[in-house]
């Protein structure tokens, strides 16, 4: 468990010392402090193979690195989140990710005799050259280029929308983003 998670868990645990006990309230309108499942445990990976996941982690770190004290994809655990998201995504999206991660890795091995996750930044960044193409409305037809475009958007979003970024914004007295009205199920 990470230190942050541990601190959050400890903060949410009621103290049990008798001197600090409060009298039970007969009121049913109690408010308890809770944390989300994501804050309490480590996510279980279900979708990518270990090699695909390592490639995605490296890719995520290249696309959204930590910069000037702001969290990056690694701090946001963006790759682990995308493993979860892709497991639930339509089949064509899953295939695009899986095959393209395999291709990136294969290309790395062919060119450098190393896995993508073992490449240095210069070698790894060189394999992301399709991202240098000027934006067009239609996605690229070449699968790896299409994947890199999709993955770039997904990684940035998974990072920007993470708790790590929100906490860093608050700590840095920057405007916290991502707070919006949420609609419950209406029955």
């Amino acid at each position, binding site marked *: 468990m990470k230190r942050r998670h541990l601190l959050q868990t400890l903060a949410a645990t009621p103290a049990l010392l008798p001197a600090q006990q409060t009298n039970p309230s007969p009121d049913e309108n109690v408010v308890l402090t809770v944390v989300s499942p994501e804050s309490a445990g480590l996510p279980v990976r279900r979708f990518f193979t270990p090699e695909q996941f390592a490639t995605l982690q490296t890719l995520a770190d290249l696309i959204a690195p930590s910069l000037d004290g702001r969290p990056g994809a690694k701090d946001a655990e963006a790759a682990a989140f995308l493993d979860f998201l892709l497991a639930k995504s339509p089949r064509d999206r899953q295939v695009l990710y899986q095959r393209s991660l395999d291709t990136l890795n294969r290309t790395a091995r062919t060119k450098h005799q190393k896995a993508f996750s073992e490449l240095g930044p210069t070698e790894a960044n060189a394999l992301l050259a399709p991202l240098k193409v000027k934006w067009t409305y239609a996605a690229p037809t070449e699968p790896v280029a299409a994947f890199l475009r999709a993955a770039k958007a997904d990684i940035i979003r998974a990072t920007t929308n*993470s708790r790590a970024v929100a906490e860093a914004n608050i700590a840095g007295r920057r405007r916290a983003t991502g707070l919006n009205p949420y609609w419950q199920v209406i029955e």
Partner: protein
Amino acid sequence: MPTFNHDVVIIGSGASGGMAAYILAQAGVKCLMLEAGPMVDFTRHRSMKAVYDLPFRGFGEPGRFPHITQASEFDANLWTDEKKNPYSHPESDPYYWVRIRLLGGKTLRWGRASWRLSDYEFKGKDHDGWGENWPLTLADLAPFYDRVEPLFRVSGRNEGWPQLPDGKLLADDSTESLSMERFLASAKKLGVPTTKPRRATGTLASSVNLLLPAAQATGNLTIVPNAIVREIGVDPKTGLVNAVHYIDRRSKREYTVPAKTLLLGASTLESTRLLLNSRSRQYPTGLANSSGVLGHYLFDQFYVKNTVTAIVPEARGGKGPRNLMGGAGYVPRFTNLKPGKPEKNYLRGWAWDFGSGGTPSPELFPQWGDELARTMADVQGAGFSMTTMGESLPRFEHKLTIHPTLRDEWGIPAPHIEQRYTDNEHNMAKDAMETGVALCEGAGFEVLAAHSQMVPPGESIHELGTCRMGADATKSVLNSFNQAHDVKNLFVLDGSAFPSGGVQNPTLTILALTVRATEYLLAQKKQGKL
């Protein structure tokens, strides 16, 4: 045991249903309103949440809404569930049907843009020979627009343009930012008219706060949520509507209620679906369909989102004066306004919404990593973007039919929807893009991206037609008062009544038409004709 003391049944509670109840209940008419969805409680159903606390970090559940790009993970529970409410379209021609089944309908989420139609739309055939004229003119509808605009607190600026009629507006006298001034000057140089946005104002501008409370305060409106109407019943002797058959959304128990007069405002495609599903010996191809055009002439307004995205160079790095960025505006249709041969390679025209001060999407930059992060910091708040709305032409072959086997969760036959954009719309979109680039460059902006790819039909949520009004009963379903030619006690009030739609957002016109139709209904009742 219910007491059937209502004078009219209203199906739907959105713009048209809500306005019908507002007018009729205040005139002393007993109204029974059937709404397919549940009631929204803004206090109970809505709360603030952080995006990182959502199960899918704001991505939304994958595959939940294949056709509703507007749905976010925050508001996913507002949109209609496609699995329970299926429809089909040709595989080659996707149709994005965007629905809200809640009390208040789409007025809970509408964009609020409120423009009047002009005689360029009402008399479009006279102008360029295409399609059919409306059976009314701006002069006929203007007094009703005059009443709707103050009710919805529409703000904007009157310009005196024939293609964008003036209204009863809350005057928008706000000043322009420096970047907007530059854009407006560039537009003026190229002869492109610009004005302020025209929008309904207020925290909420919906049927549920502006129309239904006043109607219910009269004691004349009974609202029934969760009532999904399956079929409209007809008296075999008179051919008039005499009943409405509905299903409780939750229990699926069926009910019937008598109807002396029926006002249908279930939304463009739902209303027509219901009429087509209401077949009888008198009306074997659907209720009020002696013309054979019911379901046909489906159209909307095509959208090209972010046609042009640009950067105001002086705003990079947060530099520039404080009033450099911000503000929004609108370009009305300005092409093909002269009578005779069109000046462009298309009929009719398009409009723009534009705004200053956003941050362009990171996907537009061919960068990643530190370089991209620094670019995003540099262009934060420095963006300028334009979205195109274009007129699509009503065509007979664009239609809603009933699917032979597909049923919704309540066993009601589902629609099959066919619409595609043609060369006319594509040529328009291309012209809009090229003109937009010229305007931005003329203003000294850096054009970051430009495209003319329209979203699929339906996605603008401005679906119109399929139950159109007209002077000729052999070519239309409704008369100029939204009354069915074939069935005198049936009125269809929503966007399905439109014979054409221009580029103006349709809700204001739906509201004005509804006021006009319901007051005609009151007059008919007074004269004993209904």
